[in-house]
Each structure stands twice: as C-alpha cells, then as structure tokens.
C-alpha cells in the first residue's frame, strides 16, 4: 500500500469505504438488468448470422401476427439520418452510420448485426416470433483482417467509400475510410544521424473490454411522448442525446437514469439497445426491457481495434533517439471510427524525438464497430513502439530504464500533435522503477525482465455538480458522472476537504439527466479532474452562502466571517465575540436566513495533465508448452494527487490485468464464414486470479496545479505498457521477439521452433 500525502490534507489522500460498497457486496445495488416496471415487455434483437450480406427483404407479418407479440421493428422504422460527419476528427459522428449500426438497413455488415427487434409478453414468445421473421439475405464475400481489407480486390463494405485525408481524392472506393498523417522535423535526416536503425512489423488482435455486466436497458414512453430510460452506461447524458437524435425526439422529452454499472472501460460510451427499446416502447405504449447475452456483447458491441503496424526508430550509440516513424493500420469494424489518430499522436509522446512521422489508416471490415477501450489507440501503438525501444536498448547495450530516461519527455518537449508538453511526470515514473528493490534482482533460467512506458492525454471538459446542505448539517453532493471506479468516494472526499467536515457527513450520488446539469461521459480519465472541479466549485459557492447566513445570524458584515474546520468563525476579535457556528446550526436557521442552502456549479474543465506510466515485469516461459507465467509486475504511474489512493491503485491494477489479457490470451477468433468462434468467457480467455501475480502499483505524485487538489486522470494510461513489457520480458527470457498479440502458447512454441532473429 502506497503511503501518500500524509500531511497535506485532512481527507484527500485517505482511504475510507466507498459509499456504494455495502449495496454492492450485499447484492442490493441496482444494475442495468435489475429494474422492472409492471407490464414490462421482453425485448429481443434479431441478429444477422452472416458476416456480410445484402438484405433483399424482411417480412415481419407472421411474427407480428403471433399472439403475445406487441411490435416488430426493422431499420426502416427508424428516422432517416443525413450522411455527414459531424464534430471532431477522432469522434466525428456520422448518424447515417450510427443508425445502421443500431439496426442494419441495406446490408448486414458483421455477424451479430441487429436486423430487427421484437417486443413480446414473454421471452418464449419473442423467440418464437424471431423464427417467424423471414429475411432474404444475399450472402456476400467478407473480410476480417485489416491487411486483407486494404487489398485492392478486397470485398467492399461500402461500394461508395472514398478515403478521406488523401489528396487528390482517390477515384476508386476502398475499405480505407481515412488516412491521417502527423510529422515534426525531418525523419530522413534523423535516420541518417542514427548509428542503429531498427524497423519491425507488429500485429495485435481485436480485444473486447469484457465488462462483467452485459448491456441492459428498460425504456418507457408515455402517451404525451415523454420518455424514460434506465440504462447501464458510462454517460446517461450521452445515452439521452444519441437516443433522441436517432429517434428524432426533443432531448427534453427523454430522462435517463443511470443504473449502477458493472464495468465499461470505454465500451459503454455509445448506444446499441437503448434506441431500440425506446422505439419499441413508443410503439407499444408499454415498458420494454432488453438485456444482451454475453454472446451478443461479444458479437455486437464494440471491441477495440486489431491492428497491423510498422515502427522504425533510429538511435545513436549514446542512446539518443534521432528519428522515429510509425505506420498504424486499424480495424474500425463495420463502420468508420477506430482510435488510430490517438495511436499516431501517443506513439512517441513519452520521448524527446526531434524527427517524427506517423501515418494512420482507419479501415472498415466485417467485424462489430470498434468502441473506445481504455486509452483508446495508445496501448496498441505502445506495443509496437515500446518493443522497438527495447530492441534499440539491447542493440546499444543500454539498460532499458536508463535508455528511456535519457530520452524522456519533459515540460517543453515538442509533441507531434503541435504544442510543447505542458506537464511533467514521466521521469519520476522511470525513477520509481529504477529505485524499486526488485528491479536489480537476479532471474533464473527461462526468466526475463521487460520494461515499457505509456502516454495518455487524459480528459477534462463539461461536468456539473450540485451541493445541498441538509437540515442536520449533512451534505449531499450530486453529480452527473456514473461511478465506475469509486468516483462517489472521491467526490465526497473532495467535498469533505473543502467544507472541512468529516467524510461520513457527505453523501455523494449520481443524479439523472433531469436532476443535475449536463455531464460528459465517465471516460477519458476525466471524472476526478473535471467533475471533481465542479464539486469543489459548488462546495465553495455553498460555503460563501453559509458565511453570508452566519453574518445574518450575527448581524455582521459577510467579510467578517471566515470558514474554517467546517464552521463559520469571526474573521477577527474586532468582528465580535461569537461561538463558531457549525453546518448543523446554520442549516437549522435556513428558513430564517433565506431558504434551503444549495449550490450548483458547471465547468468546462481544461488544463488537465496527461498521464505517464512505466512498468516492469518478470516472466518465466515454459519452453515445452509455451506458457508464460508472470512472476512480478511493478507499475509506476504519475497520478497527480491520489484523492483516494486505494481506488487509484485499483485503477492501476485493473489496467495491468487487462493489459496482461491483451498480451497473452485475448483475441476474437473467426471461422472461415466470418463468424466468431469464441463468443463466451470459456473460450475468450480473460485473465483470472490464478493467472496473475501481485501487481504492485507505485503512485508517483506530481500534482496538477490547475486542479484544486492536484488530481490527474488515472484510469487509462496503465493499460499502455503491459503488452510491450511482457513481450520484452519474453525476449529477455528466451531470446525471441514476439511481434503478434496475443502471445499465446502456440505462438511462443512456434517462435521457439525457429531460430532467433
């Protein structure tokens, strides 16, 4: 356990029990599937069995006629959407695509693609109705792999897709949705200056976020058009906005209540079943509930992209990097929008590299549309870049941490995306590894140690909070951020610190879309930073009000009242001889001094600092079976200020675990028909406790001065280094450079059967 900030704050940096802990461990917390209204209908989504097929026709008449069936819908029941990319490049949304991902129209583009939906009085009747829907498919050739999808003769998902970002624009359509390019300096000159140049190609598999809770929702729409949605998501305001847009409803006609969420990791920032349930509810006048099965989650909700990459790095003998270049080809899935831009921007961000060049390709293929996954894009390019970094260090005979330290980005380092780095923190993570007693321990036969680093932007943006002082002096803090990683505890800690009251007197909740101001998703490691800022702002406003109320009670000027240790006190003896007034005492006079004491704050929080992580791991490879056992994992991360250190450590451990799964086990396996063969946790191999060593988090605190308590985002960057750290450790153990994820036993065995490079 890290000993963090023992004296700076009274509450920030402590480890109290989370307010949502008891309902969760006693099974009483309400998740997406747990709510039921009287008269709720069972909603079932009918899905394509084909990876790629033209839908010639869908006949729903027989299904609609089945007693107990209340509605059957297809893509044509949704309003049309204009074909245009709206918004910024990385997240440019084309609702023509979004509505077709929610429900197919002209074509089914992946196995599991929704093609119709049924609302019936029971599961059995819905299943019977499904069998009565007649769909005439023309099965088309499909393409799964990104390199195959880029070939000139590849089957086209969209016959009119012209690659964006290429000038002049291509005249022929392809599966390449977009090409991106970023550069600083002169890479040709940089490579000429290098003593050693290493270039390598890599591939990574598509992996799912694998949240334990499947997508689940219940929706109802009243006769006046007012609708309510209960859903498990990372952002109920985004569920409201997307559902309203897809159904052509005014945003104000929808109220979305956040259920507890059983994991999201980026995958619950988009909608799949919410617009379907809402449309079925609108048509039937009854509540409709849809719960995805695990099979549906794998086949029809976003994994992150698989990739094909080439990275080249040039270094001098003294360890100075002179140039770096990367080409990153990402599977977007069935619709454009992979995180390849982030991969291009983050790839070399931890390092001072005067000459850099990255190119990215966003490529559609017959897989589910990719969705965000923990630092989207960055872990993928980090696998390639950090592997080549390791090869460079070995080639010039330098310790991998020392090599990284020599080139480490610091405040003022030019970034490939334009500005200079505004915050430090990376060097400190490397020093934490260097100073760790285990870093120098000797390893045995078939054992090896690997090091890698990672970079992630972290997020800020729009968040809202309200604070209410209850009659007994306790405090209610409401925010619009779904709590995935313990944010209610963090919000309560920051409010307690600001008010100067005991943590147990603060209750933090997540409010619905009608009860608190707009708040962007719980994603991008933004909540503690942005929503925390809103909580502190609202608390300060409430304190100003409390001071004014105390001034009224004492008949003094408000400037004569200060707030200290949870009480109003006279600013000096000149103000008068007054006993401090507690929150409870001021709340008791609320009516007389102006009514209920509440405050709200909304922010567009900027100046968030990026996250840096550095990790090392020790592995042992069984040469007979190819099994890799992780012996030790040490993960250092710059966390700004750890508001609740236990949950920061949890984020780091969770990111590393997911990275271990990505490195060693997880992948989408397709059969020759383009159907996923391992859509369940028995065959899609997530790490379990017995696969894992103790993951030791090292909290490095370089506070962000922009945040009231120095917080930085902590949720994502920890997943960037593990894949390369493990690959580098395997290379150290058996002398084989693994370039394809997952590094499963058959691949290790195959590598051992061949001579080393």
């Amino acid at each position, binding site marked *: 356990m890290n000993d963090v900030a023992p004296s700076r704050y009274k509450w920030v940096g402590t480890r109290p029990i989370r307010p949502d802990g008891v309902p969760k461990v006693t099974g009483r917390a309400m998740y997406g599937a747990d709510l039921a209204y009287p008269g709720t209908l069972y909603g079932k989504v009918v899905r394509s069995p084909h990876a790629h097929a033209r839908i010639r026709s869908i006949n729903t008449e027989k299904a609609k006629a089945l007693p107990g069936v209340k509605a059957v819908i297809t893509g044509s029941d949704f309003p049309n959407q204009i074909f245009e990319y709206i*918004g*910024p*490049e*990385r*997240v440019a949304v084309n609702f023509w695509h979004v509505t077709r991902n929610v429900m197919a129209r002209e074509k089914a583009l992946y196995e599991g693609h929704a093609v119709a939906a049924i609302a019936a009085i029971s599961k059995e009747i819905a299943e019977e109705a499904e069998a009565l829907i007649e769909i005439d498919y023309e099965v088309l050739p499909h393409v799964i792999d990104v390199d195959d999808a880029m070939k000139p003769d590849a089957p086209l998902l969209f016959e009119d897709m012209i690659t964006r*970002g290429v*000038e002049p624009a291509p005249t022929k359509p392809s599966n390449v949705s977009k090409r*991106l*390019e970023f550069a600083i300096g002169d890479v040709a000159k940089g490579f000429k200056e290098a003593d050693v140049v290493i270039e390598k190609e890599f591939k990574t598999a598509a992996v799912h*976020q694998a949240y334990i809770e499947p997508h689940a929702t219940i929706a109802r729409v009243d006769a006046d058009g007012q609708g309510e949605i209960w859903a498990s998501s990372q952002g109920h305001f985004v569920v409201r906005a997307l559902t309203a847009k897809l159904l052509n409803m005014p945003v104000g006609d929808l109220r979305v209540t956040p259920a507890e969420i059983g994991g999201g*990791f*980026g*995958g619950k*920032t988009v909608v799949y079943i919410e617009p379907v349930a809402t449309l079925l509810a609108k048509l039937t006048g009854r509540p409709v509930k849809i719960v995805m099965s695990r099979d549906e989650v794998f086949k029809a909700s976003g994994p992150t992209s698989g990739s094909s990459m080439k990275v080249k790095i040039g270094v001098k003998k003294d360890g100075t990097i002179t140039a770096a270049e990367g080409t990153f080809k990402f599977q977007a899935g069935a619709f454009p929008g992979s995180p390849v*831009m*982030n991969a291009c*921007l983050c790839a070399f961000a931890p390092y001072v590299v005067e000459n850099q060049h990255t190119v990215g390709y966003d490529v559609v293929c017959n897989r589910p549309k990719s969705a*965000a*996954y*923990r*630092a*989207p894009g960055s872990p993928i390019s980090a696998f390639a870049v950090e592997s080549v970094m390791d090869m460079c260090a070995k080639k010039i005979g330098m310790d991998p941490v020392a090599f990284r330290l020599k080139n480490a980005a610091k*405040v*003022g380092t030019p970034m490939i*995306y*334009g*500005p*200079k*780095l*505004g*915050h430090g923190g990376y060097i400190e993570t490397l020093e934490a590894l260097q100073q760790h007693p285990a870093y120098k321990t000797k390893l045995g036969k078939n054992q090896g140690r690997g090091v890698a680093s990672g970079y*992630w*932007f*972290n*997020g*800020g*943006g*729009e968040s809202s909070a309200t604070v209410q002082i209850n009659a007994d002096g306790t405090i209610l803090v409401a925010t619009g951020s779904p709590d995935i990683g313990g944010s209610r505890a963090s919000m309560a800690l920051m409010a307690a610190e600001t008010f100067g009251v005991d943590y147990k007197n603060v209750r933090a909740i997540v409010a619905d879309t009608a009860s608190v101001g707009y708040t962007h998703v719980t*994603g*991008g*490691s*933004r909540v503690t930073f942005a929503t925390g800022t809103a909580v502190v702002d609202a608390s300060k406003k409430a304190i100003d009000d409390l001071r004014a109320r105390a001034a009224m009670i004492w008949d003094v000027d408000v400037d004569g009242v200060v707030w200290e240790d949870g009480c109003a006190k006279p600013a000096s003896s000149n103000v008068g001889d007054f006993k401090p007034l507690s929150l409870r005492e001021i709340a008791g006079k609320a009516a007389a001094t102006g009514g209920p004491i509440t405050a709200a704050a909304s922010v*567009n*929080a*900027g*100046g*968030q*600092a*990026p996250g840096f992580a550095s990790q090392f791991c020790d592995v042992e490879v069984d040469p007979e079976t190819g099994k890799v056992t992780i012996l030790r994992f040490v993960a250092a991360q710059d966390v700004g200020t750890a508001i609740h250190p236990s949950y920061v450590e949890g984020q780091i451990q969770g990111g590393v675990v997911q990275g271990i799964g990505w490195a060693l086990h997880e992948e989408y396996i397709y059969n020759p028909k383009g159907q996923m063969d391992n859509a369940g946790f028995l065959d899609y191999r997530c790490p379990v406790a017995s696969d894992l060593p103790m993951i030791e988090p090292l909290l490095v605190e370089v506070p962000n001065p*922009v945040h009231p308590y120095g917080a930085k*985002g902590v949720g*994502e960057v920890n997943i960037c280094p593990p894949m390369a750290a493990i690959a580098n450790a395997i290379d150290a153990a058996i002398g084989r450079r693994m370039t394809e994820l997952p590094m499963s036993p058959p691949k290790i065995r195959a590598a051992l059967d061949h001579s080393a490079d």
Partner: protein
Amino acid sequence: MTTAQVTLSSGFSRRYTGGRREFEIEARTLRDVIRALDKMYPGLGDHLEEETTVAIDGAIHDAPGYFQKLRQGSEVFFIPKLEGG
C-alpha cells in the same frame, strides 16, 4: 493587448484556411483568437469551437472556452478533438 502565436493542425488548415497554419493574433482570451480567425475566414470560429481541442502553453483543454486567458507570447494550438475510454 497581448500577442498570441496561434497554430492550426495541417488537416484543419487544409480544409479551412487554404493551408495557412500560423497566425500572430492580438488577444487577451481565447475568445479574441476565435473572433479574429473568424473575421479572417468567416465560419471558421464555429469549426474551431466544435471540432478542436486547444492547447494553451502546452496545457490541453478538451473544448475551447471563450474565458481561457492568454499571456504575452502564449502558444495556442488547435488540434483534433481527443476522446478517451
């Protein structure tokens, strides 16, 4: 009035400013920058507000805000919007 060094991404400049990427703009706040660019390229202001993340002296702001203050010589980069998981 202070002067800010303003840079657009290459893709953005290709689309909206005929390839010009760098500007020196007299501005106290980001609002002044957006207003000045919009005057030079009508409609550009909306694109900047909706489609970019802005970095001011290296500090990243997810969405440009009118209220963001600049100092003499501030470096302002409008870069593609970023989104996390």
